[in-house]
């Protein structure tokens, strides 16, 4: 199963190595990883997407990460209401006679054209990973020259759905 894990760390040299090294040592499979500063000085946040076999493995992952001295907090946010975003830069072959057609076709994804040359156009597309996958599949037949993805970053929504059991009206 795919899990999204947020890890809050002290921004010290080597901390990324500690975290990824640990995942490697314990044989976890990282699908993507993003890191950046937070609103607090010296605190960074990492977002991992990992493929995990079962609950026990997941529990181990969270516990082992929490054990690191430089790790302040570990949250598996997969089951929360979250915002997931990824950015992709897609360079596509785009001869002048096809360009209008292409722009029309990708329109629903609201990509931005951030670079053009005679035969190539570069789209920037932002969204959850599935949306980006779909965009790529759509544009692939035109000939992708280069593809760069940032990996997922995520944050928990302010209002969470409250799980209340359906109460019988009787």
């Amino acid at each position, binding site marked *: 199963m795919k899990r999204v894990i947020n890890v809050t*760390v002290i921004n010290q040299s080597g901390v990324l190595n500690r975290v990824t090294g640990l995942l490697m040592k314990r044989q976890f499979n990282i699908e993507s990883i993003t890191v950046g500063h937070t609103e607090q000085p010296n605190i960074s946040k990492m977002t991992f997407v990992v493929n995990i076999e079962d609950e026990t493995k997941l529990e181990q992952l969270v516990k082992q990460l*929490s054990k690191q001295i430089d790790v302040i907090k570990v949250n598996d946010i997969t089951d929360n209401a979250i915002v997931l975003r990824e950015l992709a830069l897609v360079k596509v072959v785009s001869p002048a006679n096809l360009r209008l057609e292409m722009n029309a076709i990708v329109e629903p994804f609201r990509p931005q054209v951030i670079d053009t040359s005679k035969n190539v156009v570069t789209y920037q597309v932002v969204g959850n990973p599935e949306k980006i996958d779909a965009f790529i599949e759509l544009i692939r037949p035109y000939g992708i020259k280069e593809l760069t993805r940032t990996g997922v970053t995520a944050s928990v929504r302010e209002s969470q759905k409250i799980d209340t059991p359906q109460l019988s009206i009787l």
Partner: protein
Amino acid sequence: MTAKLSTNEKVDSSKAAQPAEQTKPRNGSDILIQALHDQGVDTIFGYPGGAVLNVYDALYKNPIRHILTRHEQGAIHAAEGYARVLNKPGVVLVTSGPGATNLVTGITDAMIDSIPLVVLTGQVATNVIGSDAFQEADVIGITTPITKHNYQVQNVNDIPRIVKEAFHIANSGRKGPVLIDFPKNISGAVFDESFAQNANEEIYLPGYQPNTKPNYLQIQKAMNEISNAKKPLILAGAGVLFAEAQEELTEFVEKFNIPVINTLLGLGSIHGDHQLNYGMAGMHGAAVANDAIQKADLLINIGARFDDRLTGDTKAFAPNATVVHIDIDPAEIGKNIPTDIPIVADAKEALKAMLKKDIQAPDTAAWVDFLNQKRDEFPYWYVEDENAILPQQVIEKVHTITNGDAIVSTDVGQHQMWAAQYYRHNHSHQWITSGGLGTMGFGFPAAIGAQFAKPDKKVVSIVGDAGFQMTLQEIGLLKEFNLPVKVVIVNNGALGMVRQWQELFYDQRYSQSLMPVQPDFVKLAEAYGIKGVRITKAEELDTVFADAINSDEPVIIDAQVKQLENVYPMVPAGKSLDAIVGVKKP
């Protein structure tokens, strides 16, 4: 005993607090040594080199005792032995590059066995780090997965804080090794004295808050289970020793009449001859201990980590038991064995909380009777041989001669298992062995560290002929400090455990497990200027051997034993504890 710990007399705390008459400003090395002193360090095991010359210069003026081993690996195993005996961090100081990489085995060993160490490594100057400079190694990169935490000092003024944090991390929570990497320019840089008071500031580590107090409700749940249990069993691991909870454990065991078994590293957490102690469990554990696990309806693990050498096949482990697991490290709970009642706490705190609860004590009389019968029926056994010394006899003799009062260290292999079986571990912190990593070459230097820790105690190092040859260069220390360590080489001219597995599982194809050429260990001892003796007949155990163990000087004893002896009982690797073989004398 007359251990000539010559430099010991130099230790004088009043002198150390004052960093000599200050004519020149203090540098990073002075601050480091002062910080070690503030942590109560009086002994360092180490080996100098280019990158730590500044530190050794600061040490030269200081009363902290430095033990110059013959190899860095000797230094770190000695520090491990020292830490095991005193239950406080051992300190190691080595140079950059090869000095640091020679520690890797010892650091890993300490990590897996939770031994508190503070390891200080030199490093090349910060302006050449990353340039493949002379004796440069990426020590932080190399040791990140094998330390509890590591630091590279980037600013001389951070030293007081880092050293303080390092000792705190090493010696709290689940203990372990912490490494500090010192670039040479930092150790020589002038310290800004306004940072000196940082040493008094409280430690601030937001990501490290080990939980020591148990959850009240979990304790209540565990006690309810105990109250209802018919066949409760306590598995006591090294966590009991680290928490110094030996008394609480004994009180608990007696109060509720619950049988107890030990892990290899937990030996000594309860008296070896205690009526309710059924010995060591696991691959070469007592038949009764393993049987107890398989039949128990409640298994209370206190400070053990369900290592695979204990559990065998985890799916078939303790099939009837509700599992209570008390551990200071939450990551251990549920890692190997599904746990019904987790209790994250220090073993002492948890046992205290459990002792406070008044519950209906379980009726365990029938269970205890059953185990007593099993214990009598299936003791450890060996078949005497009138033409050879049996290795088990050697260990038994060590026990009788020392009255079970000695500190015993072992190496790894057959002799280690026999020492666990036949030496009855009556006291805590007197059993030093490499459990998790199984490091050959560990036993002898660890004994040296133990003797430095307890100069007045009898220290016996039980080693195999192969493992001893991995670190025997440290004999030099026995001579230099007149350390009265007794080295008992259980000499079967083989890598015994490897050979045993080849006999049992590889049709006796003894591939590279026999070692026909050995040094003359007696002459070797004599070459170093200490005493060496050899025994080849069982009757010499009461004469030559006993005299050697009883003597007050260092002795190396070459006990030539039967080569083809096997360790039994045995649970074949990966099999269920029920698959135990060799429980009875044929």
